[in-house]
């Protein structure tokens, strides 16, 4: 039998004070980057605009493409290499011209620019209404997801657990968004899907730990084990599962990131970051908050009992 950990008994919960600092630090770094860069970089899915993916027969330079597009006056275009050196993505902001007009102009400008033969492989146009709708939808999806999780955990376990799990999830979402911002990646529809997956994943992990805690508390609790100790036991008992699952999911995300192609790169990136922070947040955000919350409640109970006894 290969075992990662033989009867692990690490003091995870005891070090939660430090972990709080770490969580806050990471969240703050992400938020700082978000604020400094004036929010996320949204894909045209959310801002509206036109995206053209072009594959040239001979590799052009960004400058060449830019100069050939400069004649069409469609606003500030963003030109990015996409995958190998012959493939580029051109993003144009929303223009007064119709989508057909924009496409026609781009096509003729590229043809006139002396860039050789090219093929338009993808074309996306998102109008202002749709962009706004999708923005709303993104917020809506995340909120409904969070509500669902709070309700589910609140019913299956308790409210404390539900709230703590959701705080952990919010932490993960913020860290992912921060990472996106730091790496200058874009927030697109697939990234939204990845974010929602991470929400599910992070909760998954948390539930495994909660489940174990509840099962243990159903049995005889050895005398002198505080709630914090019991939580620590639960985390330790599920440790090898947590690490193994994180590893396999992490591998899956890594494979997507490195072999999934350019289109899925941002998506995979969020999963990649999310799996790490999701695993971390189970113990150090969700479990830690439940422990401190319970201590606080129990402490107040004890104090009020004392007060009653004195009186």
């Amino acid at each position: 039998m290969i075992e990662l950990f033989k009867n692990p008994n690490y003091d995870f919960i005891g070090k939660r004070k430090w972990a709080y600092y770490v969580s806050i630090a990471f969240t703050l770094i992400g938020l700082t980057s978000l604020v400094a860069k004036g929010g996320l970089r949204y894909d045209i899915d959310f801002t509206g605009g036109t995206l053209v993916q072009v594959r040239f027969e001979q590799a052009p330079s960004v400058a060449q493409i830019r100069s050939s597009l400069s004649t069409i006056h469609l606003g500030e275009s963003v030109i990015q290499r996409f995958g190998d050196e012959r493939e580029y993505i051109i993003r144009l902001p929303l223009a007064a011209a119709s989508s057909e007009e924009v496409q026609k102009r781009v096509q003729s400008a590229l043809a006139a620019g002396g860039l050789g033969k090219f093929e338009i492989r993808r074309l996306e146009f998102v109008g202002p209404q749709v962009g706004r709708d999708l923005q709303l939808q993104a917020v809506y999806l995340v909120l409904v997801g969070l509500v669902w999780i709070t309700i589910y955990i609140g019913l299956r376990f308790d409210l404390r657990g539900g709230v703590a799990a959701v705080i952990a999830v919010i932490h993960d979402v913020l860290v992912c968004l921060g990472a996106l911002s730091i790496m200058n990646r874009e927030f697109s529809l697939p990234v939204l899907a990845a974010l929602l997956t991470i929400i599910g994943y992070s909760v998954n992990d948390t539930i495994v730990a909660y489940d174990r805690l509840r099962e243990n508390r159903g049995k005889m609790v050895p005398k002198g084990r505080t709630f914090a100790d019991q939580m620590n036991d639960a985390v330790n008992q599920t440790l090898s599962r947590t690490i193994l699952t994180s590893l396999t999911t992490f591998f899956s995300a890594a494979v997507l990131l490195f072999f999934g192609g350019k289109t899925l790169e941002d998506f995979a990136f969020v999963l990649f970051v999310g799996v790490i922070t999701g695993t971390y947040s189970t113990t150090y955000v969700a479990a830690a908050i439940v422990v401190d919350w319970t201590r606080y409640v129990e402490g107040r109970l004890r104090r009020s009992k004392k007060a009653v006894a004195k009186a």
Partner: protein
Amino acid sequence: MPRNLWSRVTLVAVVVVLSGWYLYPPKRTINLGLDLQGGTHLVLGVEADKYVASQTDRAAEDLKATLERKGVAVKRIAREGDATVVVELASPQSWNDALTAAAELQNFGRRDEDQAAGRFKLVMSERVVSRLRDDAVRQGLETIRNRVDQFGVAEPTITRQGSDRILIQLPGIHDVARAKALIGKTALLEFKLLDERVSVEEALKGNLPDTDEILYQRRVDKETKTERKIPYVVQKRALLTGAELTRAEVQADPNSPGNWQVSIEFTATGTRIFGEVTEQNVGKHLAIVLDGSVYSAPRINERIPGGRAVITGQFTVDEARDLAIVLRAGALPAPVTILEERTVGPSLGADSIRQGLIAISASAAVVFVFMLFYYRLSGLIADVALGLNLLLLFACMAAIGATLTLPGLAGIALTVGMAVDTNILIFERIREELRLGKTPRASIEAGFRRALRTIIDTHLTVMGTAVILVSFGTSSVKGFGASLFLGLAASLFTAYFFTRLLFDLVYMGRRKVEAISI
């Protein structure tokens, strides 16, 4: 050996056979999204307000005609906003006659009456407005479906989205620009008389009667490619529209070689009206107007009885063909605008499939090897279960006709990672029981039982999120949610039921189990 073992084996066998049946042959059974097979996804916004406005205009015209017939002098009848007609009488004396005439417009209610000034408003009721808006979208959708069918696209999807949007998916289409032109054209064909009492010069200066308008004919010089616009003064009132049309065919233009024309044929009513119109207006010019542009304005030489006409306009054969299609399918009740477009070329789609499959295979391979290495025989069992999981997932997609998109492929790659979690949970639990000194059989039993609750909890939460994605998300997010949901449902079945069965087959059959390879 447990008594129900055989029934469980049978169940799994049935599931596998069913999956195979649904999946065969895979190229035909799995619906590929447009991002994978190439094609165009369009969201059109129907300007339903314009349809309401046009109906209000019609009501105003009717009222004007009725009042004229009754000899009621009118200062002004005009549309205000989309659904209001303002009526101003020349004198308050004819107030009662006007009210009787207005009462004939059943969809409108009277407001802001001012008898002394001889003024009132007719407002369309909310109920009628919303019915008309709905009609505009429904008819628009039908018309577009007709056009697309005639254009010849394999398996198009045309559905309504929300209250005033139409979603169109055209897989594997090559000439996107042409398809868009065909779909988006309003195709309102009108026959209007030129007003030859007003000179074009005067009209361009702005001296134009209320009942007239200036429309242009576009002429492209084929050599210099420059466009000329020729103005015409036409009467606003259409004598006949494309609604009275039965046939539209492409013909070679006999007067201009290399160009094509569309010959049209009217319905019985159309033929009668056309005959009358041509009879009454011999010597005048009749403009053929399509979507506000004049195509030609031939002189009426004599009464035309047969109900036929031709539309000329330097068309290429494709243009003529598309024009014939839109005329046959009918006009859109209201103009549409493209709100969203996503077009993926076939080569990119093929690349995406390849990359997606590589990603899935690679992540599956990593997980397979890892499980085998770490859990030995049990790992092999988990791997077989994972294989079944993927089979089930694809079969479910085929069975319910779900669409596989690129994010969907990512969802599957992810499911592989998460499905194996269920096995890990069970195996770790069995190991724990073994450590406690239980017998192998008891450990398997307890391991599965104890892990079950956790497994259900984890699956339900993530499946819940997947349901949210499918129900509130659009296109790519939906595809991702669908494959995630199905993958997890399959994993619930395989990891718990199928893995358990394999364990039972391996270990329960023997009399005495010494150790578990886990």
